[in-house]
């Protein structure tokens, strides 16, 4: 038992396990399928958040265009599902059967060439990851090789978000326009709107997210992870130690883009549509605040932050829509000014020391009275961080 605990502690898996417990056991047990599906949707933003932790917190590059990659992944998936939903029989009332309904409404008579490959699921799954990654590569390679960074880079990514959202809305004949791609029903004949499918998709999504967090943790532990951190703090030193700094930044940006793309695809599968409202400037910058609230340096914290902000949004925007924007404004300003490392930072700087102090003050009297029943030697070894938090709660 103790060896397992030590192993968990050594590999800093405590947070990951707690998150797994929350999203794999507690949430599914406590929520009906409607609410669980809602949480599934929030968790898809979690992919963007962990991408931002790697990119922004870990490598010091702020992107205000993550919605672009989320949207591209989502649209790739939506195109496949839309084609499946638009077979000639179910679309026989259209003037051109067999093409998506919005194309028919826009007087298109044939499927555009670039839609064709999305008949294949294999191609689609590859595209979900590769399309965002390739675009990220093109943008970042050009910029980082020319030493563009910081604020400039952030603005360029924001411009890309604006371009893509205007483009999607403007080209409604081939993209579905402002409504997006809707009425997605089945995946290879499997009804994704049924309750059982929603359960399965929720668990697939949660599992995939945990796997991605684990993968990112692994990257953080390699020399690559150390270099990204080093680059964030002393870029010159890394460069003049013989590293091509631009390549490492490109990697971080592509990684974040690929993760966002996966999130977007899982969003489409669970929510059943994709629209430009997840692509533009506003959703992109909101995704940054999800990560910032949870903690830009903590993968698990960022996911928790994402859940909390979205939960807050759905509660407030229903009950007090006016208040929500003020709250969002306060979040942006408060996080930046008061606790830049988010909730995870607060946990490390305040809660953990406080718990440790409490644990220490409770142990001393026991040792002082010399209670014979509890062997004093066992207590400290068992008091690894995880159990202490549980013990402290009842008081």
């Amino acid at each position: 038992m103790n060896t397992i605990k030590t192993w968990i502690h050594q590999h800093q898996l405590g947070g990951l396990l707690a998150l797994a417990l929350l999203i794999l056991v507690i949430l599914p047990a406590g929520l009906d399928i409607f609410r669980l599906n809602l949480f599934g949707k929030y968790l898809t933003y979690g992919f963007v958040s962990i991408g931002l932790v790697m990119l922004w917190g870990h490598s010091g590059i702020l992107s205000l265009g993550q919605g672009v990659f989320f949207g591209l992944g989502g649209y790739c998936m939506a195109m496949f599902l839309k084609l499946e939903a638009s077979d000639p029989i179910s679309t026989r009332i259209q003037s051109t059967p067999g093409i998506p309904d919005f194309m028919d409404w826009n007087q298109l008579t044939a499927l555009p060439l670039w839609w064709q490959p999305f008949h294949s699921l294999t191609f689609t799954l590859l595209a979900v990851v590769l399309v965002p990654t390739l675009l990220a590569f093109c943008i970042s390679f050009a910029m980082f090789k020319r030493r563009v960074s910081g604020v400039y880079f952030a603005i360029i990514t924001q411009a890309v978000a604006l371009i893509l959202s205007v483009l999607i809305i403007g080209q409604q004949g081939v993209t579905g326009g402002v409504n997006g791609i809707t009425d997605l029903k089945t995946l290879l004949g499997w009804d994704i709107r049924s309750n059982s499918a929603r359960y399965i998709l929720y668990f697939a999504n949660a599992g995939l997210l945990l796997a991605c967090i684990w993968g990112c943790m692994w990257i953080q532990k390699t020399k690559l992870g150390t270099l990204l951190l080093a680059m964030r703090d002393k870029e010159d030193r890394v460069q003049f130690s013989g590293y091509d700094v631009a390549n490492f930044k490109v990697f971080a940006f592509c990684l974040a883009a690929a993760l966002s793309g996966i999130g977007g695809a899982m969003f489409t599968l669970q929510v059943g549509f994709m629209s430009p409202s997840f692509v533009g400037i506003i959703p992109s910058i909101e995704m940054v605040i999800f990560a910032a609230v949870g903690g830009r340096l903590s993968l698990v914290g960022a996911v928790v932050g994402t859940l909390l902000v979205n939960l807050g949004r759905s509660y407030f925007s229903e009950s007090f829509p006016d208040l929500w924007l003020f709250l969002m404004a306060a979040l942006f300003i408060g996080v930046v000014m008061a606790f830049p490392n988010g909730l995870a930072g607060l946990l490390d700087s305040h809660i953990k020391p406080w718990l440790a102090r409490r644990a220490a003050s409770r142990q001393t009297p026991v040792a002082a009275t010399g209670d014979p029943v509890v062997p004093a030697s066992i207590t400290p070894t068992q008091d690894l961080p995880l159990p202490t938090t549980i013990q402290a709660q009842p008081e």
Partner: protein
Amino acid sequence: MSNTDFVLAIEDLTVSFDGFKAIDTLNLYIDREELRVIIGPNGAGKTTLLDLICGKTRASGGSIKFKNTEITRMAEHKIVRAGVGRKFQTPSIYENLSVFKNLEVSFPQGRSVFGALRFKTSTEVIARIHAVAEEIGLEALLHTEAGLLSHGQKQWLEIGMLLMQEPELLMLDEPIAGMSARERELTAELLQRICRKRSMIVIEHDMEFVRRIAHKVTVMHQGKILAEGSMDKVQNDAKVIDVYLGH
């Protein structure tokens, strides 16, 4: 000029910023295993010269050859990989990482993105880290966070990080600035030890220190070389005395 025995051969090097010539048709040759000290008043272009050699600033004209290879237009990281190491004026180390990690990151392996992903801390790497840590006198502090080191220790750590790469030319910008007398002593010994296997260029103001370590001294003034030779020779040079004491 055709191939030479020099480690570094700089010819007609010029750089101008909006018309101001920070380096003006400068020639400089460094021998193998030579320890050259560059001195000169503030604004003479000493740091700019190092910036030009390591690629941080790009020359407007002239050539820099390292072991007979033109490096004037080479990318910074390639210059480093060719064997040129550069220490910055203020200690530039990774404050949040341990001394061990600082040295490990500087080990010249796994320098590509995917190489870094696969990099393993082998026994060879560990042995090298311990050897370098001993050289710079930080072996007892390997697992200390680098930010907690004293100013002098930080300077040594950065030199150690460069030694990890086994450069053939090592450039140090004011390595003893802000050091105590004892630390200066140790640094002088360190520099004398490490220049047995490589060439070095050191920028320094402290004349006592310069006298102690320099094989040859170059005096720079307004982007040009004013005098060159042994410490005694340059100290008695009329032009040098004029620049330092005159006006």
